[in-house]
């Protein structure tokens, strides 16, 4: 079977699942962020695959992927800064132990 849209979507799904699993199951906040980056990449793969196979003459999907990357950069910057801030006050990056809102 020739590689086509379904393959890319399947790859995207697998990556998304791995990312989700990591994001849900990890203790370390930085590891969770890394898992989220994988999820965003999975979404990007889907975007670009659609762009390639559904609208090959229109690169909207790729532009969307660029915006996603931008968002990912912003998310990583703020997320990691948050992790640092939490680490500063709590001396831990264990996401399960961070329950600030409870006071």
């Amino acid at each position, binding site marked *: 079977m020739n590689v086509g849209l379904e393959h890319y979507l399947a790859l995207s799904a697998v990556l998304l699942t791995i990312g989700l699993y990591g994001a849900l199951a990890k203790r370390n906040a930085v590891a969770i962020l890394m898992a989220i980056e994988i999820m965003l990449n999975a979404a990007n793969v889907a975007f*670009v695959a659609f762009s390639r196979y559904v609208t090959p003459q229109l690169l909207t999907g*790729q532009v969307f992927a660029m915006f996603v990357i931008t968002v990912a950069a*912003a998310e990583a910057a703020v997320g990691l800064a948050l992790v640092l*801030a939490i680490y500063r006050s709590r001396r831990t990056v264990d996401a399960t132990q961070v329950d600030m809102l409870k006071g």
Partner: protein
Amino acid sequence: MTAFDFAFWVLATVAVVAALGVVLLRDLFRAALLLIVALMAVAGVYVTLHADFLAAVQVLLYAGAIAILIVFAIMLTRDVAQGNPFNSLHPVALAVSALLLVSLLWAVLATDWQKSFLPPLEPTTGPIADILFETYVLPFEIASLLLLAALVGAIVLAREK
């Protein structure tokens, strides 16, 4: 199997294995390095999709910038020695993820996608610019606002004082 298929399978395998490594490895630093590998493999996947500009962006931004940010965060939070353990929700997460995977795959395979068989555009840089700077002007400017907000917010959060 064509060379194109071969490339896809290799890249997809590398991406998935590296992503699994990111999630499963105990050594956080190695996990971060594997994240870079995974991101590069995804860039390769973009290339197979004729999105070469995006692939370069991916390597430049993800592998070059975001990954370095993550590595710095690892060094700053000093938890490398403690490793990268799973939390108590581990089995639940596994179940949820498996469920998601099954449903997603089912959706992917069951849907009859409207494919177009036109040749892809080449080179991509120009058309992207056209869309970006003519159709999506507002999102583009908002992206800069987002980046500004992220910058300011992160500096406020990360500063020592």
